[in-house]
């Protein structure tokens, strides 16, 4: 009897041990296989964004943004590298193939995809990600009304660099001249029945208004030869949160740029944001929309007028903060994603008082 019982325990122990070892081996295999891949870092980023977006203001400070700036090097066969990323790790090299037009299309796709990934990763700008990180408040809209806001905080989603064979050689410059982001923004997102533009504008616009195209060509010819092109673009995600009712107050004063998202009117609460959008705002029915005065990559590469393309969300933010009745406290503010010349340090620092995430 005793012997039998002992035998039973041994079988049980062996089975559990084998299962545990198997589990450990699988876990170690998955760990080793996925630890360095982009997918895992994307998932880690998404998880940290969600955790932060749903945490209360007090807890937000303890949840780091586990997102790493993506480094994309766009080049032709002759260079196959970007000196801009010298010594940096995890650089994704995209070697362009085909004729000039095809190469231009590839640049468009890569850039719009970078913007799409950023917007998607950051909760489409609707999550309150930085409020708890910046307890200090600024006085914005000075001279008009005082609106207390959090410091504008950013994450550099990706840095897109161009190889020397694109920026310094004649055929490369020709390719960059042919790039027009608008073409891709009006295309459907793969696997979805909405365009990138619809996605960025919360289904407000499927394509650009006709008059915009006129503006665009004018913009291109006026500026493309005057400004030295940059060879590195950063796609920045910026968010600024205002006090409750601040946007409403601002709207009654009628001093900011109106932005329509999701069918409701919200106002951009901070001068900096307003200025960015207001410079080339395309006003339609009294509202400014995403891509106001949208220029293509050509514009932001060749002229540095990158403020002309941006995805924005201004309105109520989802967060974990609740009032004493247990109801969620609505915060207001704006999120923007925009390409910017990476070397314009003052412009970036003016736009972002705090940069979070991993470089």
């Amino acid at each position, binding site marked *: 009897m005793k012997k039998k019982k002992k035998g039973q325990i041994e079988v049980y*122990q062996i089975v559990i041990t084998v299962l545990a070892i198997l589990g450990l081996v699988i876990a170690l295999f998955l760990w080793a296989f996925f630890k360095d891949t982009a997918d895992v870092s994307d998932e*880690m980023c998404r998880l940290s964004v969600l955790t932060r977006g749903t945490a209360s203001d007090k807890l937000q400070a303890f949840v*780091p943004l586990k997102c790493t700036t993506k480094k994309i090097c766009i080049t032709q066969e002759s260079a196959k590298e970007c000196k801009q990323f010298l010594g940096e790790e995890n650089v994704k090299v995209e070697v362009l193939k085909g004729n000039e037009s095809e190469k231009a299309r590839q640049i468009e796709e890569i850039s719009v995809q970078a913007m799409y990934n950023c917007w998607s990763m950051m909760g489409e700008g609707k999550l309150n990600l930085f409020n708890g990180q910046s307890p200090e408040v600024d006085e914005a809209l000075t001279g008009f009304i005082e609106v207390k806001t959090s410091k504008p905080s950013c994450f550099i989603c990706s840095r897109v660099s161009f190889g020397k064979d694109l920026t310094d050689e004649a055929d490369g410059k020709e390719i960059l001249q042919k790039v027009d982001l608008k073409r891709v923004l009006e295309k459907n997102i793969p696997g979805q029945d909405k365009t990138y533009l619809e996605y960025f504008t919360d289904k407000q616009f499927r394509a650009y208004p006709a008059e915009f195209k006129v503006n665009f060509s004018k913009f291109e010819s006026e500026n493309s030869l005057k400004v030295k092109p940059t060879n590195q673009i950063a796609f920045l995600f910026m968010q600024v949160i205002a006090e409750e009712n601040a946007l409403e107050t601002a709207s009654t004063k009628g001093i900011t740029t109106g932005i329509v998202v999701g069918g409701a009117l919200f106002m951009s609460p901070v001068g900096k944001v307003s200025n960015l959008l207001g410079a080339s705002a395309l006003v339609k029915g009294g509202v400014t929309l995403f891509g106001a005065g949208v220029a293509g990559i050509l514009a932001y590469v060749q002229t540095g007028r990158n403020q002309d393309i941006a995805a924005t969300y201004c309105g109520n933010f989802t967060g974990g903060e609740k009032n004493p009745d247990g109801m969620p406290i609505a915060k207001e503010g704006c999120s923007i994603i925009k390409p910017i010349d990476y070397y314009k*340090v003052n412009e970036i620092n003016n736009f972002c*008082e705090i940069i979070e995430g991993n470089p």
Partner: protein
Amino acid sequence: MKNKKGDLRDNIGDIIIGILCLLLIIGAIMIIYKVFANQEDENAKRVVNNIETKINNLNDGESNTFLIQGFKGAEGWFLAGWGKEEKEEKPDPCTFQSCICICKGSLAGFSPSKSSLAKQCGVKGFCRRFNIDKIVVERDVANFIELSQYVAPGEVGPSSPDIKKEVGNKICTGFQLKSNMIEVKIIKNKNEIKVLQPVDEEKGYSGNCF
């Protein structure tokens, strides 16, 4: 006695399972820590690693301007360098080799000497060593304001408010990091590495400068 040995042998499976479970729990804790832990130290290490890589990728006689991406809490860190021939107090990793360190603290809060920086780096800092004679880490202050106080004879404390004297441009040791972007110029020569923060927008700086 024999029985006890037998017990241990009988329970060897349980022990293994226990150890494996412990390993899995430690693994899970590490993952959770990775997600939620404060990354300030890690980001500081990244900055100094980034500078090290940039320096190593420059040839002798070359110079270039680079951007350093700050991080949340970066204002609480500074960058300083020590040459191997410097006689003043140095952080431990810099005793026999030249090095660049990123250290926790504020340059404005120290007594104006490199020894005080070294002490601070000893409390919390990350250093990278270079096989070179001299390392200089400096910042160019656009509008330095010298503060002085008048102490009347026989009095212990100052008997007047700060007297401000505009000095103009001044090169000071080390530089404070920022939570956004910092422009840094690196000059590499055969015997010297110079890391310089060019003139910042900083106006009317009146802190420590030595």
